[in-house]
């Protein structure tokens, strides 16, 4: 098993790696403004009518020897990101640098030498191994493909690798079906490690495994990192696992990184409301915490479709803190604290980035119903008048879920938009107060307008709810563009920042 001879080697390798502060380490992989869109084609001529924006402009870097965890709900683009940075899929835009070399547009042939350095481990330990090949041939495949002859011969090296991942070298001639799920995942790891890669991207490496086995594999990956000085990008939906294995963590939402921070900073003081909600939703195996359910933030519905993501901050449709600026202006991923980058106008545990914008969006007010008071009071804003009863709250939650459910239809994602939009438009007309904000000019107008609307928010909630209703029906929303009706168009303060 993996634990056998771990301690001595770990001691050697781990000390210098762990000692140096993460920031000073050399950057191994750098990703800038990476996008990956999958076109949607329709009609006789198969014209492109839209795109699934799986990854939509993300920046991060991975430093040598660290583990970057990537978390997010299904459909947030984390797996796509993994396949793009390993160049298993071609990016639509942006730049990927590996050890300073731009690998964004390298051809398959040009990538080949780099394949030695970048390896991937997949989720499904059943599907990723060819059932007709022996373990020996599976694990030695990278040697053959790269034309590498390891010292002492391929077989010896493969057996060493099998031993390394806690399998017996005698397993060399067996077939995948003779192994259990955990063992197969070990085989997958052995294969990934064959060529001593510098970077290993693991996509949900343990989510298909039983709890006890999951721990074995997590430990194995830990050990191997220490032993071989590996750098990991671990993609997972299980926040507990990610917390356990990662040095830094990126939280993704709808193709964007909303927060990127050191592990401890992130888990102790998450800044992005989404991060906070995500973490609060994880059930904890501790009955003593029962009854403290008040800490839990329930998010409304599912992640909107990545075909037509919401404008501005993509989380604003589900966020209890969302204000007008969130709807119009996309927050940038900014390093607010050392080692903690957040894309939020109203971060938790930190100074508000748009303090002048205090009026909650209607959706936010509904959302805040599901957020415990402790959380709300801890934030920089307090939820204004939540007069809606719990019944309507459940209803609205469900509505947004319904709209997002049918991901095949891009039109439906905007259901909350027209309602809140008209409100904003109306207000901006009424109050042309040129109060300067911290953001750009276009935001200023929006922000002030929204702020002004705050006073009327309570009374506006009635018509607003009505307006939301027709829009949420599938037939009504034919236009994927989140603009209001044409009669409002001349006066509409269309956000330019998008």
């Amino acid at each position, binding site marked *: 098993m993996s634990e056998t001879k771990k301690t001595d080697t770990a001691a050697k390798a781990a000390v210098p790696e762990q000692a140096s502060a993460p920031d000073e380490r050399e950057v191994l992989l750098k990703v800038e403004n990476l996008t990956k869109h999958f076109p949607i084609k329709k009609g006789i001529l198969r014209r492109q009518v839209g795109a699934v924006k799986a990854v939509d402009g993300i920046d991060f870097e991975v430093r040598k020897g660290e583990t970057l965890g990537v978390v997010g709900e299904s459909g947030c683009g984390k797996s796509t990101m993994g396949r793009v940075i390993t160049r298993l899929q071609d990016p639509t835009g942006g730049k990927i640098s590996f050890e300073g070399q731009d690998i964004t547009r390298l051809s398959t042939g040009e990538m080949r030498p780099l394949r030695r350095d970048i390896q991937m481990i997949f989720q499904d330990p059943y599907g990723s191994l060819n059932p007709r090949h022996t373990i020996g041939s599976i694990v030695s495949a990278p040697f053959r493909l790269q034309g590498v002859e390891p010292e002492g011969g391929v077989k010896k090296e493969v057996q060493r690798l099998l031993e390394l991942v806690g399998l017996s070298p005698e397993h060399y001639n067996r077939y995948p079906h003779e192994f259990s799920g955990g063992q197969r995942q070990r085989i997958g790891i052995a294969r990934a490690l064959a060529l001593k890669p510098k970077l290993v991207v693991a996509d949900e490496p343990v989510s298909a495994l039983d*709890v006890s086995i999951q721990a074995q594999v997590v430990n194995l990956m830990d050990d191997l990192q220490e032993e071989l000085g590996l750098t990991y990008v671990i993609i997972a939906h299980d926040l507990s696992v990610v917390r356990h294995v990662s040095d830094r963590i990126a939280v993704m939402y709808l193709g964007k990184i909303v927060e990127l921070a050191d592990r401890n900073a992130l888990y102790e003081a998450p800044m992005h409301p989404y991060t906070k909600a995500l973490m609060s939703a994880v*059930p904890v195996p501790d009955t003593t915490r029962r009854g403290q359910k008040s800490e839990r933030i329930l998010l409304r519905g599912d992640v909107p479709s990545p075909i037509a993501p919401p404008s501005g901050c993509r989380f604003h449709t589900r966020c209890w803190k969302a204000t007008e600026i969130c709807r119009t202006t996309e927050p940038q991923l900014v390093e607010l604290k050392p080692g903690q980058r957040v894309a939020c106008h109203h971060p938790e545990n930190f100074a508000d980035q748009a303090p002048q914008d205090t009026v909650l969006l209607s959706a936010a007010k509904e959302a805040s119903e599901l957020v415990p008071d402790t959380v709300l009071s801890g934030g920089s804003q307090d939820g204004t008048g939540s007069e809606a009863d719990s019944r309507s709250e459940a209803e609205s939650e469900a509505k947004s879920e319904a709209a997002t459910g049918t991901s095949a239809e891009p039109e439906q994602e905007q259901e909350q938009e027209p309602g809140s939009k008209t409100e904003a438009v109306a207000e901006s007309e009424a109050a042309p107060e040129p109060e300067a904000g911290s953001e750009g000019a276009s935001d200023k107008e929006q922000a002030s307008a929204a702020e002004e609307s705050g006073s009327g928010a309570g009374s506006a909630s009635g018509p607003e709810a009505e307006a939301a209703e027709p829009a949420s029906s599938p037939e009504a929303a034919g236009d994927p563009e989140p603009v209001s009706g044409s009669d409002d168009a001349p006066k509409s303060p269309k956000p330019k920042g998008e």
Partner: protein
Amino acid sequence: MTELSKTETGDEATAKAPSAFLEVRDLKVHFPTDDGIVKSVDGLSFSVEKGKTLAIVGESGSGKSVTSLAVMGLHRLGARGKNVRMSGEIWLNGKELVGASPDEVRRLRGREMAMIFQDPLSAMHPYYKVGDQIVEAYRVHHKVSKKEARKRAVEMLDRVGIPEPAKRVDGYPHEFSGGMRQRAMIAMALVNNPELLIADEPTTALDVTVQAQILDLIRDLQKEFGSAVIMITHDLGVVAEIADDVLVMYGGRCVERGTATEVFEKPQHPYTWGLLGSMPRIDRETSERLTPVKGQPPSLINVPSGCAFHPRCPYADIPADNVSRTVRPELELVGAGHWSACHLSAEDRERIWTEEIAPKL
């Protein structure tokens, strides 16, 4: 079937007329195969009261799903059905189900006991509208018109929080999101107001945020209808969140059973320790390594002799005379309503838990 001797005496009485709403006594479910007999469930007893939630915890292959199917009488149906050997007693609301005719059990199914499954997408028929599937479930047990049944379906969809239920009732499962589908599934299960709800990993396939919603919903509905719930899961976090009682299964048998508080605060079985140690926890800073259970789950055909957990148990050698390998431990009362099947002495368990296990969690 009858040659299987009674090995478990954990429960107070084996006489008829059970006091609990659902009572399972010495349940054995064996599947003869070409390779040998798969003893999926091998002598299991438990009971659930109305309004209470029992969580059955275990890894894949521990027999937890088979238990639930046995209660529902489902594994007796279909191609595999005729090969099942089943013994023991299942008392639901005063009726014994193991000996009942398939049709009797069928009539109870869906009406008095209902089930929701792990993957709502595959668990709903892809070709039929969600509403029709609910209507079908309602009309099997109620002689009502289609129109009435449909009204009921809309009502149920509304109750589980599906927006515009009158519209969504005509949607197909694939048009629903994962969370919505599970809601619809719950609506379908609850359409006949069953008194027992079995939820088999109801949130495993869902994202955490949606999982929280669904758990909330189940909790609320239970409160409203006062039904008994059996929650089958491998996620101890879910268990801690929702269960009143916990039953830990390993190799087709119960290794530990008790109230949730007891089991989480003073777990008595090394396997339970292993499970707790294997789980990375979000609520605590642990830079230490996880402490996994070594080895692989046992084969249900050749269940290890003695304590089935002994090949993986780090403490198997502590009890004298090699009993771990030779004698199968019975459930013993180890605390208030807390049972455990382990050869370790109470002192050893206490010592190991407080000194070795608890600090690492």
